């Protein structure tokens, strides 16, 4: 309910700003669909960031006005919403929904030459399938995640591993990256299992994995409830091989729903709580909203900050000038390992530094320290 009131207030504030001369930024998020657990906190971080920018006087002397739309993670309505936002005068679109929805929006932004960025999607193919010079991705790619996890795993001398995922689009995509990365490193995948969405147990899958006797288990799934089932079966069977997980376990909800299940699990993250920028962000966010932010808030926050920075560098709201400024941008934000900068190498539009991710470990039920950084 509080959230609803806050959204209403944000909406009214945006309405108030409408009357003035503003810079309109379109935001396509998911408020009811499968991506909501990710989209909502990221978008809250984004809205907080826009507020901070406006408090400091806005960009080019104008306030930022967010036009927020909900696509329910549905690609079929996502593209139509992108068109609506462009018609309403958005000079930049931030995609905070599911990877396929973001992909679909690109057909519109490419044709209308409107800058678009996703600060949170991790699908590797978003910047490679379409030659869309108006699109950027600053979330860490799936391939960077696996490379970082593998770099950490290499020190453990693994030979045979198991891989488990869920049947969501993203879970399957990540599983593919994980398998490719593992096989390239000469590590044999001896068992590969899928826990479907809505399953009531992961015990049969875990029995198969136990029978394959792997050195470690890699978790590529992104559905929290199904991942908890996997961890529960692992504890239930008293298994001892280590678990290395995708970034999904970096979401703090595991500290409550995975109570008693997560100790010792390592996971890849793009967030280092010891980093100065993170401490500053957390303090400011808490002061403003009274709530503790986490890594997902940082994605949205960095996203809007980079967009504002690009518009400032462009010195105008001309979309072509913004595109040039965005492509040339380097930015140090909340996300990434200490000292990481987002930048877009020549010809590339994925801006998260390949060495910017970290591996952390659960200590008890708490997300603990960084134990590895980058791909080396």
């Amino acid at each position, binding site marked *: 309910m509080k959230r*609803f009131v806050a959204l209403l207030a944000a909406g009214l504030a945006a309405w108030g700003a409408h009357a003035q001369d503003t810079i309109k930024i379109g935001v396509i998020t998911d408020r009811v669909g499968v991506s909501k657990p990710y989209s909502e906190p990221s978008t809250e971080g984004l809205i907080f960031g826009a507020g901070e920018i406006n408090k400091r006087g806005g960009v080019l002397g104008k306030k930022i006005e967010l036009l927020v739309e909900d696509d329910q993670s549905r690609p079929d309505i996502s593209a139509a919403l992108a068109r609506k936002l462009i018609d309403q005068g958005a000079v930049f679109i931030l995609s905070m929904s599911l990877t396929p929805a973001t992909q679909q929006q690109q057909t519109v932004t490419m044709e209308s030459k409107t800058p678009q960025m996703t600060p949170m999607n991790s699908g590797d193919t978003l910047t490679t399938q379409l030659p869309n010079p108006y699109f950027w991705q600053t979330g860490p790619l799936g391939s960077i995640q696996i490379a970082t996890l593998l770099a950490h795993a290499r020190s453990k001398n693994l030979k045979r591993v198991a891989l488990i995922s869920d049947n969501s689009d993203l879970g*399957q995509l990540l599983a593919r990256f994980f398998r490719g990365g593992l096989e390239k490193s000469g590590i044999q995948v001896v068992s590969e299992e899928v826990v479907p969405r809505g399953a009531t147990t992961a015990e049969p899958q875990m029995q198969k994995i136990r029978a394959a006797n792997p050195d470690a288990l890699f978790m590529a799934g992104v559905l929290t409830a199904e991942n908890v089932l996997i961890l529960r079966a692992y504890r239930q069977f008293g298994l001892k091989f280590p678990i290395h997980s995708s970034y999904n376990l970096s979401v703090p909800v595991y500290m409550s729903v995975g109570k008693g299940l997560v100790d010792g699990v390592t996971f890849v993250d793009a967030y280092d709580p010891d980093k100065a920028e993170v401490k500053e962000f957390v303090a400011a966010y808490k002061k403003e909203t009274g709530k503790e932010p986490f890594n997902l808030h940082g994605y949205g926050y960095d996203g809007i900050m980079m967009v504002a920075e690009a518009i400032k560098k462009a010195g105008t709201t001309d979309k072509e000038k913004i595109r040039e400024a965005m492509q040339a941008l380097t930015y140090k934000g909340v996300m990434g390992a200490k000292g990481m900068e987002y930048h877009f190498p020549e010809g590339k539009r994925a801006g998260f530094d390949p060495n910017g991710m970290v591996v952390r470990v659960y200590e008890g039920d708490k997300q603990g320290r960084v134990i590895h950084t980058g791909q080396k």
Partner: protein
Amino acid sequence: MQDFLELAVGAAASGCVYGLLALAYLLMIRPTGIINFAVGEWAMVASFGGFLLLSRYEWPYPLGMAAILAFMLVLGWATERITVRPLVEKGAPLLAPILALLGMLVVFREAISVSFPPDPHPVPFPFGLGRLEWGPFGGSYQSFFIIATTLLVFIGVWLFFERTVAGKSFEAVALHRRAAALMGINLSRVTALSFAAGAGIAGLAGLLVSPNISAHYLMGIPLAIQGFTALVIGGVGRVEGALLGGLLLAFAEQMTVRYAPVPSGFAQGVPLLLLMVFLLLRPTGLLRARA
């Protein structure tokens, strides 16, 4: 063999949950002919009740469970009064209340979706996380708790239908609504009670399964589909068919994942395949209603 017996306990527990959901459908379909797909959402509502009372406010488990089930009975009754009865009284075709209930499904889900954060919420286990070894069988405390509770419910419902006058009146309405009405059976009371009981049973299924799968706003649809598949397999004619359908479905699902030489992803197709085979070859399910 050890693996098989271990899996049998887990599969039986899943099957019991599916069976309870199938029973919730059945209790409403028998006297009214209405398929209510909102049973999954009812299970979700009860799971969130579990999160609120048992996790957040830390009520003792039996008290929390009783409060939630009482609330579910009222919710089922209210759903019937608000959604179904006005349509039936106006003589609307059978499809109308089914569609209205689909609308209620969305209402329940969105009400939860805007009231709680989107992440899964923990619901506690009544007996903790431990593991019980019982002869050759081994499984979590929760698995054994689910199986025992479900058996009690099915025995209770079976006795109600077979041994009580009230139960017979339900059966009479199921056999012939008009004739039952002419015999003095209060149709609207039977309908209201069947919805209340349906919600209660669906809520119980939600409470039993949510410590494992956590309470989250998208949990309803898969449960509704699993329950419906179990119902189609077991048949709508007899109470024990619901349990049989649930158990068969769960065993087919989990044994395929464990033993079939197909990639794990394909095993998800098994319930769907079963549903299609039964709809095509034996639409009345395994157990037929007694004449």
